[in-house]
């Protein structure tokens, strides 16, 4: 009997050891299992994959001060989202990783750094896990050897006093039973730890997996997958466009437009050699067009990792001779002077560049920081920068604040004539850029209600429902009159897309004065609202109310009757 128990015990000790091993392995590899579980959403990510990667690394090292035990990269807290945006803003301003950590540390203190620095106060913190691990390994080794020894002892049936048994009380069973002490039955001693182990593994596998539907993380990995797929699609589309352009060039090597298109698509896929080659050919085919010269100069500069080469420099001079207001050439001239250390000249060139561009164009930020850099390294005050302003809009009744978002008609005509020559992909890109610009401007003037409505419409036309819904929510913040409110309700209902929008409609309806709410047009909208959230009866009631008040023969009445009939079915 004893022998049998001894063998069992040894086997079970080993089983326990194996199970513990499994648990440790799962714990160690859980970062791999969880690798898709990040809080970051697609729209937060930076376009530049290198910067994005840095942003991710930095975020992983910053504590979310709301949840306190998560990095801001893992957290869905509002503050974490804001901090992630802040980190990305800093990166866009060319700040180094250390500078970013330092900047946030100045605001939030040491605590914002997720891994505490190794210093006397934190020695215990750093050493404790290692010490515990060491003790654990020692204990397990002891357990293992004791079991082995016990096993052997039991088989020989006489070796009762083993020094190693000291460590493992349960292996002293024989002695205890002989001395008659009260003890827990073996079966419980053995099954309880096994049960705990199995339970914990089951709980981990059952609840902890991020890819399960009811896990908040599941959605995130899905979103990331979608974002990655979109990026891939975009890259594939760019590659396809490049191959098409290449085929066109092979068929017709003397075509300027084919070469130029090849250069543009090469730039899209980041193939700088192809871009430079195509631009050089375009240049010779065009007989030395000044615009292509400055483009080529830019491509050459990019090819040389941002250094303005001699070849680029002479192209810049030629381009500027033809057109002294060539923005690209002017900027590069500034860059060239900067690299030569002629800060005064650099500032002058960049200041003239600024007068040619709008203060909210993408180049403007670069210019601001470049001029500041040049001024600082020259030890002079940062000069004031004057940017161009858009010609006043001719479109009437747009009011002072709306002027920026209306398009200058002549400019628009010009762009449209160029537009029709573009391929489908380029048209889509063009629209996307316009929308991007509109939304950038709105960021500057969030109080522009009709701007937000326009943006929402643009997003809707591209079937980007989420962005449209965001724009409408921003519009809600810019509402200043009942007229706005009604327009917003209409727009939200027309898009009939998401739950959050019905919430918005509900809020806006509640904010309308009663007198307006009794009017037929608002009643109609309200009916539509109820229809959309699925309460057909209320919708029918509201619409029937209107029917009772308007002449029964009119077209409106007919439409309403039709709508009600549809709902009743």
């Amino acid at each position, binding site marked *: 009997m004893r022998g049998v128990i001894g063998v069992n015990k040894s086997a079970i000790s080993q089983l326990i050891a194996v199970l513990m091993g499994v648990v440790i392995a799962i714990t160690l590899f859980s970062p791999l299992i969880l690798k898709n579980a990040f809080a970051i959403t697609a729209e937060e990510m930076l376009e530049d994959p290198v910067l994005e990667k840095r942003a991710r690394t930095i975020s992983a090292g910053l504590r979310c*001060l*709301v949840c*306190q035990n998560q990095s801001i990269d893992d957290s869905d807290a*509002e*503050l974490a989202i*804001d*901090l992630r*945006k*802040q980190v990305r803003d800093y990166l866009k301003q060319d700040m180094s990783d250390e500078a970013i950590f330092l900047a946030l*540390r*100045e*605001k*939030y*203190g*040491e*605590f914002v750094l997720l891994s505490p620095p190794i210093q006397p106060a934190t020695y215990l913190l750093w050493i404790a896990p290692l010490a515990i691990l060491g003790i654990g390994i020692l204990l397990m080794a002891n357990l293992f050897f004791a079991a082995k020894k016990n096993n052997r002892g039991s088989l020989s049936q006489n070796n009762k006093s083993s020094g190693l048994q*000291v*460590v493992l*009380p349960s292996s002293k069973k024989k002695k205890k039973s002989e001395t008659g002490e009260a003890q827990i039955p073996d079966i419980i001693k053995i099954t309880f730890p096994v049960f705990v182990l199995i339970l914990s593994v089951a709980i981990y596998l059952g609840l902890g997996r991020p890819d399960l539907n009811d896990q908040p993380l599941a959605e995130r990995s899905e979103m990331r997958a979608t974002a990655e797929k979109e990026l891939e699609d975009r890259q594939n589309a760019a590659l396809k466009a490049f191959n098409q352009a290449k085929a066109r060039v092979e068929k017709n090597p003397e075509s300027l437009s084919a070469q130029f298109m090849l250069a543009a698509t090469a730039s899209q896929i980041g193939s700088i050699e192809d871009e430079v080659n195509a631009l050089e050919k375009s240049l010779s085919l065009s007989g030395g067009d000044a615009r292509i010269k400055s483009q080529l100069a830019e491509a050459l500069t990019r090819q040389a990792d941002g250094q303005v080469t001699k070849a680029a420099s002479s192209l810049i001079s030629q381009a500027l001779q033809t057109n002294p207001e060539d923005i690209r050439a002017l900027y590069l001239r500034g860059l060239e002077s900067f690299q030569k250390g002629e800060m005064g000249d650099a500032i002058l060139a960049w200041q003239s560049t600024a007068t040619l561009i709008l203060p909210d164009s993408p180049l403007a930020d670069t210019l601001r920081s470049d001029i500041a850099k040049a001024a600082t390294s020259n030890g002079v005050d940062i000069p004031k920068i004057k940017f161009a302003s858009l010609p006043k809009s001719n479109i009437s009744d747009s009011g002072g604040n709306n002027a920026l978002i209306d398009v200058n008609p002549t400019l628009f005509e010009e762009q449209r004539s160029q537009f029709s020559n573009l391929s489908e992909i380029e048209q889509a890109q063009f629209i996307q850029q316009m929308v991007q610009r509109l939304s950038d401007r709105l960021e*500057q*003037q*969030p*109080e522009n209600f009709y701007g937000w409505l326009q943006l929402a419409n643009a997003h809707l036309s591209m079937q980007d429902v989420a962005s449209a819904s965001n724009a409408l929510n921003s519009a*809600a*913040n810019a*509402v*200043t009159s009942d007229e706005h409110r009604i327009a917003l309700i209409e727009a939200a209902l027309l898009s009939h897309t998401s739950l959050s929008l019905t919430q918005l409609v509900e*809020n806006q309806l509640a*904010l309308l004065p009663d007198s307006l709410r009794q009017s037929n047009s608002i009643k109609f909208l309200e009916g539509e609202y109820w229809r959309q959230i699925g309460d057909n009866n209320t919708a029918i009631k509201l619409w029937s109310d209107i029917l009772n008040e308007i002449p029964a023969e009119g077209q409106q009445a007919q439409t309403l009757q039709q709508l009600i009939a549809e709902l009743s079915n």
Partner: protein
Amino acid sequence: MNVRYILPIGIFCVIALISGVAMISILNGDQSRTQLPSPLIGKKAPELVLTSYGRTQASSDAALDFKQMIGDKPFIVNYFASWCAPCQKEIPFLEKLSQKVPIIGVAYKDKPDELAIFLERFGNPFLHIGLDNDGKTAINWGVYGIPETFLISDEGIIIIRHAGEMTHDVYRSIFLPKIEEMMQ
């Protein structure tokens, strides 16, 4: 009882004791969790470049001029939002407080509509309200949860940062001594 029984039981007891103490201190709302030290204390308060609430024209480019608005005396900057419950709770006290110390409100990620309803319903203790729509200003001030209340000296230095609801007790024990010190 044998030594080899006492050892594991002893270890278990020590671990249990430590976790017990930790648990109790967390359950009792240990202040170290909610009151993180701010490194901004003793430094100049960051600028408030915000759209003012209640004005149609955005005055977004200029920083708030504390001196011009308040003069040479200490004041309070309170981060709040209409959607935050402790912010609603602290308004009555802030209204009383505003008779002694001017309070500048920063509405964190709020909507003008909802803000209007909030102020109407709970009262408006603020001398001026700026809208921090994107939360950037809050980050600049090291705000990690609202409400947060800052005491600023007449020279624009941050003296105190209190995270959480502002109550009479907090004011009397933390704010008042510093204010009296400055007034002397």
